Structures are given as C-alpha cells and as structure tokens.
C-alpha cells in the first residue's frame, strides 16, 4: 500500500484536467489540492517543495513526487490495480505507438494551442500584452497539428487515436488540450476547428467515453468561456474596442 495520492492541480490547466478525469473515471482514491495559477500559488515555497519546477499538475504518492502529466498518467495506469488495459496497454507495440503520440504532442498540439490561446485570450485577461507575432506563429503550429491529427493520428478503424476502439491516456491528454480553445472568440474557434471533421467527432467521442467526469472537470473552463463571451459582447456593443471592430454579437 503506497499511501494516499495527492494531486496538485488547477482545473484551468489542460494537463490537470486530464489527470483529474482519469482518476475519477478509474475510481482512484485521491485528494485534489488546488494550486491557483492566477494567484501565483505555484510559486509558493510549499508548492515548490512538491515540484521544484513550479508547474501543475504534480502528484505526491507515498514517497514519490512526480510532475509532467504524461509521466503521471503512465504512472497511475501502472501503479493502481484494476485500470483497464486500453488506457496504457501492456502490449509493447501498442504502448510504443501511444508513447509516440504523447511525445509528438509537446512540440506540436500543446505548443501551438497553448501559445495561441495565451496570446489571444488568457494572457490579456491577466494583464499581459497581446503578442500578435507569437499568436500567428503558434496558429501555424496549431493548424499543422490539427491536420496531422485529422489525416494521420486518427486514421484507422476505431474512433480514437491510432485507430483504437477505446480511448487511451493520449486521447485524454490531447482532447483536454483542445478544449482550451473554448475560451476563444466563437468565430475564431470555428475558423480553426471546423475544417477538421474527424477531430471534432473524436473530441465528442472522448467526452462521451469519460462523462460525467469530463463535464465536471471542465466546468470552470466553461464559466471562464462565458465570462469572456460577455466581455466581448460588451466591448462590441459599446464600440470601444477598436482592434476588433466586427460589430457582431457573440452567441451566448
């Protein structure tokens, strides 16, 4: 018995949501400890002891402290009994394929999506200046990644990554990254995602396979989405936003 599992998370963080959904879905007993990034809790001495790199998610399990969400997901799949094989198969070849997509993710979907959302919505929301150049660069990477998902990673008979019939930790990780796009302006989000039909179907399938926990862990993101939509509406109505003068109202 390794002792209690503590998960240090902020539900606004994509990799944190993946871990929370995974734990709840698999009936893993754990304590969720909130680390509020917006309030810089990740920089506190207490949290720095848990993760010297000061990032969420991080876990404490007995003597083990661990960070990096893919390492955590792989660890949880192996360390806890009763976790269905499809999450992180023991078959060496199937596992290798999942590892390859988890690796690819960092410099591709994660890099593109995270930087794009930060530079268009989430950064300005906490007072950071907009960086249109970084946003444009990130958008290229994001679109290229979506194209790879649509045309390569989602090839095969099943509806999940690598043509699988059931989700793996890779599906959970990547879909939680894509849900962050919910905070974008509706037209922007539509423009980016709508060409990718398989991707859109896959997001839905992953959501269905992991509900109600998927919805529960995304609640805070949906509330943030609503808040941003209301802000954009107000700006559009008052006509004071000169750089975004499209004159249409956000759907709510």
């Amino acid at each position: 018995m390794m002792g209690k599992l503590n998960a240090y998370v902020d539900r606004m963080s994509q990799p944190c949501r993946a871990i929370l959904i995974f734990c709840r879905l698999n009936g893993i007993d754990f304590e969720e400890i909130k680390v509020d990034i917006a309030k810089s809790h990740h920089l506190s001495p207490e949290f720095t002891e848990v993760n010297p790199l000061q990032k969420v998610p991080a876990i404490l399990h007995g003597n083990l402290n661990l960070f990096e969400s893919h390492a955590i997901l792989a660890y949880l799949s192996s360390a806890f009994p009763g976790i269905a094989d499809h999450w992180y198969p023991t078959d060496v070849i199937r596992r290798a394929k999942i590892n390859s997509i988890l690796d690819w993710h960092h410099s591709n979907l994660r890099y593109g999506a995270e930087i794009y959302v930060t530079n268009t919505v989430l950064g300005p929301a906490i007072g950071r200046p907009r960086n249109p150049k970084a946003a444009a660069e990130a958008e290229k990477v994001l679109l290229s990644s979506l194209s790879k998902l649509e045309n390569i990673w989602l090839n095969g008979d099943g509806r999940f990554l690598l043509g699988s019939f059931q989700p793996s930790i890779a599906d959970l990780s990547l879909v939680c990254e894509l849900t962050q796009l919910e905070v974008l302006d509706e037209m922007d989000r539509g423009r980016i995602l709508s060409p990718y039909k398989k991707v859109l179907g896959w997001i839905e399938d992953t959501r269905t396979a992991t509900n109600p926990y998927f919805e529960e862990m995304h609640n805070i993101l949906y509330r943030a989405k609503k808040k941003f939509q209301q802000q954009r509406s107000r700006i559009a109505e008052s006509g004071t936003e000169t750089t975004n003068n499209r004159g249409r109202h956000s759907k709510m």
Partner: protein
Amino acid sequence: MIDRREEKEERKMKLKVYADRMSQPSRAILIFCKVNGIDFEEIHIELSKRQQLSPEFQAINPFKKVPAIVDGRFNLFESHAILIYIASAFPGVADHWYPADVSRKAKIHAVLDWHHLNLRRGAAGFVLNTVLAPLLGLPLNKEAAAEAEKVLTSSLSTIENIWLKGDGQYLLGGFRPSIADLSLVCEIMQLQLLDEKEHDRILDPHKKVQTWIASTRNATKPHFDEVHNVLYKLKLRLSLKQSSQADGERKSGIKGPIISKM
C-alpha cells in the same frame, strides 16, 4: 501453419534504424543499440540532401523525421518512444536503462517529457539559428537565436540544480545511465558545433553538467565517440573556417574573433 512461419520470418528480420548521425535523437538510438549489442541495420537518411522527404521514407514515417525504426511489420518514430520500445522489447538490455520499478520509471518519463520544450527546444534552436541554418540553406534568425538561448540557459540550470541532484552522477541521482541521460547528452553534444568561445560561455557555469556529459560518454564508449564522429568532423571543418575568416580579418587590419583552439 503459414502464419506461424510468417511470424518467424518477421522476427528474423533485423531491426532497421533510419537515422542521420547529425541528428541528436538519431545518435541516442544508435549508441543505445550498439551499447546493448542489439542486432540492427542502420539506414542513412541524409537530411542535408532532404532524403527525409522521399516517398520511400514517407512510407516509413509520414511525419518525415528521423529517427524512425521498422521492426518486422511495425514502424515507430519519436526517439523517446523508440528508446523505451527497444529497452522493453529486446532481451539483455540492463535494467538501469529503463527500470522496471514503476516509480523510477516514472521519474525517467518526467525528464524525457520535460526535455522536448526545454533542453531540446533551446539547444536545437540555438545551434540552428547561429551555425547550422546556412549549411541547410536557411536564413539565420537572430531573434529566434536569442529566444532559444534563454530557454537553453534556463534548461542547463534546471539540469544542474534539479535533475542532477542526488548521490549518483547521472540524472535523478542515478549511479548508472538511463535512456534519459543518453537522450539529453546527445542533445547537448550538438553545442560542439558552436565556436569555442560561445560553447564555453554557455557550458562553463554548469560544472555538474560537464561531469555528467563525461560520465555518459565514458559509460557508452567506444560507441559514443564513434557515433559522434560526423559531428566532430563538422566541428573541425567549421572551426577551420572560423580560423581562416579571423586570419583574413586580421590581414585586412580589422579585429576579428580569437582563433579557435584546435
């Protein structure tokens, strides 16, 4: 019966490793295979000649990147996935490379994951935008080089102060190297292409890092140097070029950089 024979044939088929020794992750895989006595065929994909864009190679890896492997009917790319696969699928690979212990394994995964957007992004970006770009027909990007240098310096500090903490001289305080050591050290070796002054400026502050590189090189000899030969040859060629440029500048009365030691 026929299926079983086919299976035996597949298993007899050697592991094929598609690599360019100028590529850091390619080197990690080649060294790993050689150190562990794995029977494999090295297939050279010359990046400077854009061979990764050929239809033949695209069939192996639709992402058109090295390294990639073919083992029987199975293709794989992404060097960390490859290292883990080989460590797990081939008998006789010592446990310290990729421990069976779930907690130790998890820590190695954490370093491997951290690597992509930290050391890899910083080191590869810096070398590309200061030295390699012209050799590949690409423009030098000073802004990108400055960004990459920030990430590189920060990553080296993280390795020095966090990842190399512990009793042993390898990552995570290990007494023997793991696939993480091999992957990260091969990445740092790319900095050899920088001019001597730049290289020393970046690495000198990190004493543990330097010792760790030497330990990893020592633990994997003679394969480490053999696989890095292409890199060493290019380094020599570049420093000769830098020398003659400096000479030329001195003769014309213009002060140039200090001549690289050779």
